[in-house]
């Protein structure tokens, strides 16, 4: 299909601001009389604040006030998991206890030292298995796990059960969560190769480049909050609730977000933004709270670590007959995270196993709070699975690419707990494209070839994420000037999907892009509700809303044209910013004229009547404030059917030096299967960025918590090991299958998360290949692990420990 905008590159409106430094992140704002807040955070991994004596600090010159949990929660803190704004019951080191406002940061820090904090220390735990053990400490007051609708509870195994799992056996304790399909026993019985192992993957922090700083002030009863988010409109209502202000009196300003990766999607994952708002209200001055890197580490979220047991059976021809997965998920200090379930759904989707059982127990630890991080679950498990696939291929004598094609998801396939069909799926095509672009057939013979101390390794990886939602709203306006204003609440965090999804509206109206304005950046520009820009959903979800709103507008335009120029609306079409009769295109109106006419007519044309039912509260508010201002397209998106998958395939070649344990990535291609391509440059960026993240997961990144005292070691970039320019390939090849999905009006599905899983999988497989098929059953595989393996050194480290990941 020939599109005007879809599949074409464009210059997103914010990119010039990014290269000139003019675009503003929350910390770049200032306000007359603004003061600075700093956080006093918990020194202990688990404790209870008994007393706060701030008298001396408050008596200092230049100190304006403090905010404590008692101010935020006058009726007591809610007994629920998740980060609090401030807390008196810290369950991890670094959790904010109070904020202090002063004339500058230095004074605030000095004042902080004068606050006397009395904390009762409580037992803490860093490894879920330690907590599961009878007599092990519980991370939370009231237990080590949270049961939905019931509250905190205690989950314990017998000492033997823990020891047995630790020594590599299938866990025997009953899991908190489980689902299954197919006949597992028959599957294994019919298998010719069965692989069974325990595995562990490390948790690690998001570490977005922009710390989650926020600035707030109050004016005429309204709270203005400059913050950071993955979606302005999805976060607004809940954030207003946390601040304690009616939605109509809350303005959230967020022109640009310095990275989200899952932990700025919902207000609940970033409640710290309420601190400057509350403090500003209390001391009646604008308050800037700059968040430091260490604080960003602590409250910025982290991927869940998984410890688990997996058993996979393959038939002689290479088809996966059965898969049994049991996970212990590290829920960290504040609960939260559903990585294990996504991991299971992911392997089910990618490998189309005939029978599957999934079991999981989620256990808290006094470590960084966990929540969704780019491909939560899927991207860890793919790094474990890919080398197992290669092992099966080797044992069964099947080509490594073929075994993946054999088990690949195709149109008509189903996956997951509910055996839900895909909206469309072209994994074999993606594998083929990747193999072709990479030159798999020509190169694969080089696998395990040595050159001095160096050895080649190849890896094939696949990534998956459920990548599309629906049920959101769209607002667009045709201005009397003839310009199209597309209101979009998707956050601006670097995917450019706030702009690329808006182009679906321009596409419908055949509107030149230079005549379009994307209205975003602050909620008082009146935005419709969007899904949080997480779960790789934006491109699917918000092209639907923008497309729908444009269709609504188009319908109204046709009605107006028919009204004024005669005939039926169906007799009209659009072209060149004009609406005209199909029969005689000289009879028509310019977009400006139709907009002006719409405004004269008012009512439903200007958003003053006949609004779609089920509009979200925020959308209703926005529409009510825009009503009468232009000819409006307003749309509520109905639910879509089936599961829109995002798929990616990566092929890579590495050269691993067996003497240093280091490897270089010689070649890498990362291919997307995400429906119709909407924005090629943006998609390429997702594929490249996902690759860098995949390298981090597979080789570098992990939480480090000192088991002795619960202190985080990886609180800065020094120990967090974000991949650098020199840890990543000189070129990352990209490509896409580009076949439309039927559930999206422009055929698009999401890609952000799968683009990482494909690489974490491929890289782990390549390392394993270079080492002659050795399976680490872990991620990351770090330099020291490779050296230890090659030198036959058995580390004393507990193999399943993920937080203190091999020291």
């Amino acid at each position, binding site marked *: 299909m020939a599109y005007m905008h879809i599949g074409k590159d464009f210059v997103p409106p914010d990119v010039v601001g990014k290269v000139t430094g003019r675009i503003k992140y929350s910390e770049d704002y200032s306000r007359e009389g603004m003061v600075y807040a*700093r*956080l*006093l*955070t*918990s*020194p202990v991994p688990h404790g209870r604040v008994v007393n706060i004596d701030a008298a001396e600090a408050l008596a200092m010159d230049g100190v304006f006030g403090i905010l404590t949990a008692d101010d935020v929660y006058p009726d007591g803190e809610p007994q629920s998991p998740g980060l609090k704004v401030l807390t008196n019951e810290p369950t991890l080191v*670094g959790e904010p206890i109070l904020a202090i406002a002063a004339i500058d*940061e*230095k004074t605030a*820090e*000095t004042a*902080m*030292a*004068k*606050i*006397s*904090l009395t*904390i009762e220390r409580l037992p803490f735990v860093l490894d879920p298995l330690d907590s599961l053990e009878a007599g092990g400490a519980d991370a939370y007051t009231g237990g080590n796990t949270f049961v939905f609708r019931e509250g905190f509870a205690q989950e314990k195994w017998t000492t033997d059960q823990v020891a047995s799992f630790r020594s590599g056996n299938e866990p025997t304790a009953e899991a908190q969560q489980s689902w299954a399909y197919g006949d597992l026993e028959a599957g294994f019985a019919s298998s010719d190769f069965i692989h069974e192992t325990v595995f562990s993957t490390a948790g690690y922090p998001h570490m977005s480049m922009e710390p989650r700083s926020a600035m707030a002030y109050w004016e005429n009863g309204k709270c203005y909050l400059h913050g950071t988010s993955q979606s302005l409109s999805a976060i607004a209502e809940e954030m207003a609730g946390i601040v304690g202000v009616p939605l109509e009196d809350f303005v959230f300003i967020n022109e640009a977000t310095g990275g989200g990766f899952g932990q700025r999607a919902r207000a609940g994952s970033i409640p710290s933004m309420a601190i400057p708002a509350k403090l500003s209200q209390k001391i009646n001055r604008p308050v800037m709270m*700059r968040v*430091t*890197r*260490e*604080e960003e580490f602590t409250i910025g979220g982290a991927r869940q670590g998984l410890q688990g047991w997996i058993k996979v059976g393959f038939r002689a021809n290479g088809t996966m007959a059965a898969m049994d997965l049991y996970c212990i998920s590290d829920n960290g200090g504040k609960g939260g995270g559903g990585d294990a379930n996504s991991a299971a759904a992911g392997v089910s989707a990618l490998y189309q196993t005939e029978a599957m059982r999934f079991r999981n127990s989620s256990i808290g630890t006094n470590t960084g709070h966990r929540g969704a991080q780019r491909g939560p679950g899927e991207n860890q498990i793919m790094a474990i699975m890919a080398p197992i696939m290669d092992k099966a291929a080797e044992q069964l004598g099947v080509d490594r690419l073929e075994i993946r094609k054999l088990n690949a998801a195709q149109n008509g396939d189903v996956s997951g707990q509910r055996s839900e069909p895909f909206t469309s799926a072209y994994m074999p095509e993606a594998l083929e494209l990747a193999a072709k672009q990479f030159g798999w057939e020509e190169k694969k013979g080089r696998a395990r070839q040595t050159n001095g*101390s160096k050895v080649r390794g190849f890896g094939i990886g696949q990534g998956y994420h459920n990548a599309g939602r629906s049920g959101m709203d769209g607002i667009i306006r045709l201005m009397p000037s003839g310009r199209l204003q597309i209101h979009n609440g998707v956050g601006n965090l670097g995917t450019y999907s706030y702009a690329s999804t808006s182009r679906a509206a321009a596409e419908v109206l055949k509107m030149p892009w230079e005549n379009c304005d994307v209205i975003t950046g602050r909620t008082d520009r009146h935005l419709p509700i969007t899904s949080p820009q997480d779960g790789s959903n934006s491109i699917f979800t918000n092209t639907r809303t923008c497309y729908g709103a444009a269709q609504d507008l188009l319908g109204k335009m046709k009605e107006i044209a028919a009204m004024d120029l005669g005939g039926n609306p169906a007799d009209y079409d659009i072209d060149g910013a004009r609406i005209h009769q199909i029969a005689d295109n000289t009879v028509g109106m310019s977009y400006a004229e139709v907009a002006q006419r719409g405004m004269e007519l008012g009512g439903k044309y200007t958003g003053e009547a006949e609004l779609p039912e089920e509009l979200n509260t925020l959308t209703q508010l926005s529409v009510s404030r825009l009503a009468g201002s232009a000819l409006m397209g307003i749309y509520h998106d109905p639910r879509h059917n089936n599961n829109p998958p995002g798929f990616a395939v990566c092929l890579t070649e590495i050269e691993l030096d067996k*003497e*240093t*344990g*280091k490897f270089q990535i010689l070649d890498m291609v990362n291919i997307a299967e995400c429906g119709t391509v909407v924005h090629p440059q943006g998609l390429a960026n997702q594929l490249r960025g996902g690759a860098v993240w995949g390298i981090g997961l597979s080789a*570098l990144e992990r939480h*480090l918590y*000192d*088991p*002795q*005292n619960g*202190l985080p*070691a990886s609180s800065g*970039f*020094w*120990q967090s*090991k974000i*991949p*650098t*320019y*020199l*840890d990543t390939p000189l070129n990352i090849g990209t490509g896409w299958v580009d076949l439309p999905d039927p559930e999206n009006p422009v055929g698009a599905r999401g890609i952000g998360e799968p683009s990482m899983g494909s690489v974490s999988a491929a890289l782990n497989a390549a390392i394993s290949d270079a080492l002659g098929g050795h399976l680490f059953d872990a991620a990351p595989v*770090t*330099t*020291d*692990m490779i*050296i*230890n393996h*090659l*030198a036959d*050194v058995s*580390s*004393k*480290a507990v193999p399943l420990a993920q937080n*203190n990941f*091999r*020291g």
Partner: protein
Amino acid sequence: MPATSHDVMPDIELYQPTDEANALELASTLGSDGWLLGGGQDTYGWLKDRNKTPAAMIELTQIDAWKGVKEIPDGVEIGAVTTLSEIAKHPLIQSKFGLLATAASRVASPQIRNVGTLGGNVAQDARCWYYRRGLDCYRAGGNICYADSPEGLNREHAIFGASRCVAVSPSDTAPALVALDATMVVASSSGQRLIPAQDFFVGPARDIVNMTVLNEGEILTAVRLPNAWANAEFYFEKVADRNVWDFALVNIAAAIKVSGGAIEDARIVCGAVECTPRRLDAVENAIRGQQRSEQLAEQVASIATDGARPLNYNQFKVPLMQNLVKRAIRG
């Protein structure tokens, strides 16, 4: 119980002497209240965290006499506040002492090398994260080591020469200087002393608080590289987790003189395995007079780690160090 996330520079005086005498006098007057400031890349973190609280900084980089590379009768003298970038790119260093040029080019990141100085790189403090977090460990004047214990995170720590503290020498240039048999020129208001690079560093057994033998009031002003090791066969390698920023898991600097096909003399030094750069005398002795070959490399590598005492999580440093020795000898 104040536990705050400090992040901004607290009030500290700054002195910017432009002549040597003034700097030495300030260093002597201020004593331990004065913090010697080179490029500052190992300074501001300490100060922002308020984990070190000197009253004043004495900036040494405004003193031209302590900057630059110049030829001296017996070799080359490098001013202590010459930046690492300049050293890495300097034609004289590249042509005669390529070992140091390579080592300097592997430090941290380009921007840090642009500002960081040679003096700062060799005099930088331990990188044990417990210590950097500001914990009152032995090195900070306390009575405990958090890293050397069954559960301590000690993957990056020492396999040799530990004495209560198990921190390692973090420098990339220090092993190169020891391998090149450099002389450290140390000045104070009472005069100058010359210290062989090998003796410039001190381990925890002798001094658990400092990493060099510099006394209060003393300033490292220059490093002299003797011609004796100019244009030897050099080998430098750094193995770190990430190829930018990260400190070495193990690094190696070797200078080998070959004449008539046989190794006439050699100096081989490893960093990040001990609190000081570790000179591998036994290996040097074993290879003197031998042909440089794969066979020789294989034979002697294990000598390098005789007496190693790995901790729980750093056993990998033993084979890694052996492998690096092999590579250095193999050439």
